[in-house]
């Protein structure tokens, strides 16, 4: 394992680490569109909840970036 290029590992880290948050954000977006379509009168409350969920999902990608940028 000593001969693996660290750039490859870093590329794999960001590539694999971005899959989960991307799927999560897509699910949130789909759910929000569906919910607003069903009852558009509480759009504000749905969107505020959706932004919280996006923030939570985004943190996962942030941890990946943190690991990526802080390892030699």
């Amino acid at each position: 394992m000593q001969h693996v290029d660290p750039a490859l590992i870093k590329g794999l880290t960001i590539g694999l680490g971005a899959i989960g948050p991307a799927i999560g954000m897509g699910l949130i977006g789909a759910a929000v569109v569906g919910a607003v379509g069903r009852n558009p009168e509480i759009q504000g409350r749905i969107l505020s909840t959706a932004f919280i969920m996006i923030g939570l999902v985004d943190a996962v990608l942030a941890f990946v970036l943190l690991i990526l940028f802080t390892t030699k």
Partner: protein
Amino acid sequence: MMVPFFGFDIEPLGAQQVFTLGPLAITNSMVYGLLMALIIMSILTFGARASQLWPKSKLAFWCESLVELILGLVTESFGDRKKAMKHFPMLLTLFIFILACNISGLLPGVGTITYNHVSLFRAWTTDLNATAAMAILTMATVQIYAIRTIGFKGYFEHYYTHQPWKPGNILIGSLEVYSEVLRLITLALRLFGVIYGGEALLAAIGTLAGSFGWAAMVPITLLELFFCVIQAYLFMMLSTTYLVMSTSQHEESGHEPGPVQAVAVS
């Protein structure tokens, strides 16, 4: 001082000492955090001075609109204006301070102005000490208000129920206590990770694009602005949710749960 990383120059993980004030080492994030705190305090003081029943000054109008917006969000989560007003000052302070500190990292001069070969300015929230301090403050407030509202017995029963000798209750209660510690850690790491990762990403994109770094950085900067607002909002709303969850135990008049209480698990 910048750390080379595959040819990009990014800020090191920890904040660096700029000078010492007696026994206290002043780091660059402390300098910028204090500066931002002074700026916010002066702006809001001017806004509060000019506030009237019918505000004529634009600054007062915008300050009042912001406060009104946050008050609406917090009241909706608490479901009760009187309870919301009790915790509102701390939540508003957290939101405005975190938002200003997040955005301050995107201003020019951060990382380029140096003093003794150490960059003088560094956004307050890109320092893990700072976010951990704010998270500890929040969680300590939550625990103290929980004990004050529902008493020691209720606080204990919140975790271990009224039959703490049953093994199942011990297991679940310990998991609950562990999740409180986990909340503290995630609250600190989430804010730090997103803001620090974003700034490192900006540096990396700027280096990768070469001569066209200024053009490539525009969309990333807009994305970062979005995340700055989201993270400040998230920190405040999660603090609100933890407060609501821990202080509204064993109430006979069960009010409608707010919109954010569903996501309080993390």
